[in-house]
């Protein structure tokens, strides 16, 4: 199976975007080789601004550029973009409703060996709590490219969450990507798996395994965490009566939290949340970490069976 890191797809998509639109500017905070904004820097050096190791200023300068008519893409690691710069994202970008796209790479555990200090397990929760911001977590390279094009077209602030390791390519170029609309990848009646980011491909594999055991599950790629696809969540809750959410993020306040907020109010059915159990990460290879923290195909299968007993 073909693999690509979503950060790699992001770097390439930025170059495409830069070629098409003169108002695109890209900012980074000394991580351009890792976030892949270096591709854009090479193609359009005059429109690339390195701010140095200063993530607060990264967001503030992006605000000034956006207030002057630019569409600013500001990149750093997720831990710094959502954490160190939180209040500037809140007050300078979201409060002022500016056209800045915060594109954060190295999200979640799969940063790997750098360890817990660099593994953002809470960025979806903190970013989606800010009014006026759109939160996107694409599952593969293709949908990342589509997401980059879509967030350029959408006025206002966006948080785009990207990963470090290569992950399976799930979509063809002709996929339909719409902000705010989840993608139904499997349609089964026994339960619904709602996932985002790198966990979508694992859910698909789990669905195949469950099918062999005679259990048919729906699988949703919920790439937009905010504004979330409420209609789809409610429909799947009604149709399948049980939901498992799966994300490379804390079980508190992320995709699982967002789904529960809708389900408990609109159509209460049992929901299980898979994610990082309110703990910090640690050093290890990405695969070892996913295994250690229970974000595996086996666990998804196990949890679906558990959920069906509820």
């Amino acid at each position, binding site marked *: 199976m073909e693999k690509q890191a979503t950060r790699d797809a992001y770097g390439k998509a930025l170059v495409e975007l830069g070629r098409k639109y003169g108002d695109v*500017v890209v900012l980074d905070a000394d991580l351009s080789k890792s976030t892949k904004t270096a591709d854009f820097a090479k193609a359009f050096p*005059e*429109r690339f*601004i390195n*701010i*140095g190791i*200063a993530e*607060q*200023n990264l*967001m*503030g*300068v*992006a*605000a*000034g*550029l*956006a*207030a*002057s*008519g*630019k569409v*600013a893409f500001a990149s750093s690691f997720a831990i710094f973009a959502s954490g160190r710069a939180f*209040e*500037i994202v809140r*007050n*300078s970008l979201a*409060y*002022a*409703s500016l056209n800045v796209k915060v594109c954060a790479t190295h999200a979640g555990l799969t940063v790997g060996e750098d360890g817990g200090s660099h593994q953002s397990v809470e960025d979806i929760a903190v970013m989606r709590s800010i009014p006026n911001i759109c939160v996107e977590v694409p599952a593969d390279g293709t949908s990342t490219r589509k997401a980059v094009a879509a967030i350029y077209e959408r006025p206002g602030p966006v948080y785009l969450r990207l990963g470090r390791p290569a992950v399976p390519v799930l979509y063809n170029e002709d996929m339909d990507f719409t902000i705010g609309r989840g993608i139904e990848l499997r349609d089964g009646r026994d339960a619904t798996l709602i996932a985002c980011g790198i966990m979508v491909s694992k859910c698909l594999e789990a669905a195949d395994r469950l099918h062999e055991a005679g259990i048919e599950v729906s699988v949703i790629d919920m790439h937009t965490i905010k504004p979330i696809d409420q209609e789809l969540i409610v429909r799947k809750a009604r149709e399948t009566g049980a939901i498992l959410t799966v994300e490379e993020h804390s079980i508190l306040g992320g995709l699982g939290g967002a789904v529960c907020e809708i389900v408990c109010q609109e159509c209460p059915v049992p929901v299980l949340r898979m994610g990082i159990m309110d703990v910090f990460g640690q050093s290890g290879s990405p695969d070892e970490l996913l295994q250690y923290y229970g974000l595996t195909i086996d666990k998804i299968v196990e949890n679906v069976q558990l959920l069906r007993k509820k």
Partner: protein
Amino acid sequence: MREITEGAIQEVAQKAMLIRRDIITMLGEAGSGHPGGSLSAADILSCLYFWEMQIDPQNPRKTERDRFVLSKGHAAPVLYAALAEKGFFPTEELARLRKLGSPLQGHPDMRKVPGVEASTGSLGQGLSWAVGMALAGKLDRQSYRVYALLGDGELEEGLVWEALMAAHHYRLDNLVAFVDHNGLQIDGPVADVMSPEPVADKFRAFGWETLEIDGHDHRQIMEALIKARTVQGRPTAIIAATVKGKGCSFMENRVEWHGTAPSKEQTAQALAELC
């Protein structure tokens, strides 16, 4: 290029007086807000809005316009007064400061008030915006200039120094930052709380052309602005020595007037002094 004439100095002095009267009136009406740091900046804003900046109240979003960022956003009354006196909106609007549903928020909101260039109030962020605006001007080969006003207490925010570094690194000679050096912050004298001194030396060390002036002397402010236009390849800082509460005898140099609105009687007294 603007010229310093007796007529120009008289005009900005007269506008500064109107701005000060507006500040007192609107804060008296609002019942809360920040008079001290608004009054200390009135002469700087008067020179910017009524002498220096190329702006058109009829066309507030014109691409080529000069831009002003009030980084010390709590001094919103001085900005609102300058904008109203310049004609961006009717002066009657000033009475709605801090009221529910009013465009005149406690701290400036660019989405609600014509002429406000940046939503500020969280200290330290405005200078970063100004750096971004100046960078955009360079990118687009526009000749507009960007002005920012910081408080001296605000210099305690680390983000300010990140922005200062970036402005010098990117050789932003289209950027001017004023420091309203009034010496007081909420908890007391800036020198006692967390001294940023020596302020001018620090700006120089960060590569900025640094001028030190009396921030209430209109001629000195104008001369500094003219000097800033001649500087090439780096930004200019104008460290303006000011008096917090300037123009209102019972407020001058008194820390308790950082964030307290005048009562009815105090408003009347202040207005009697400001004429």
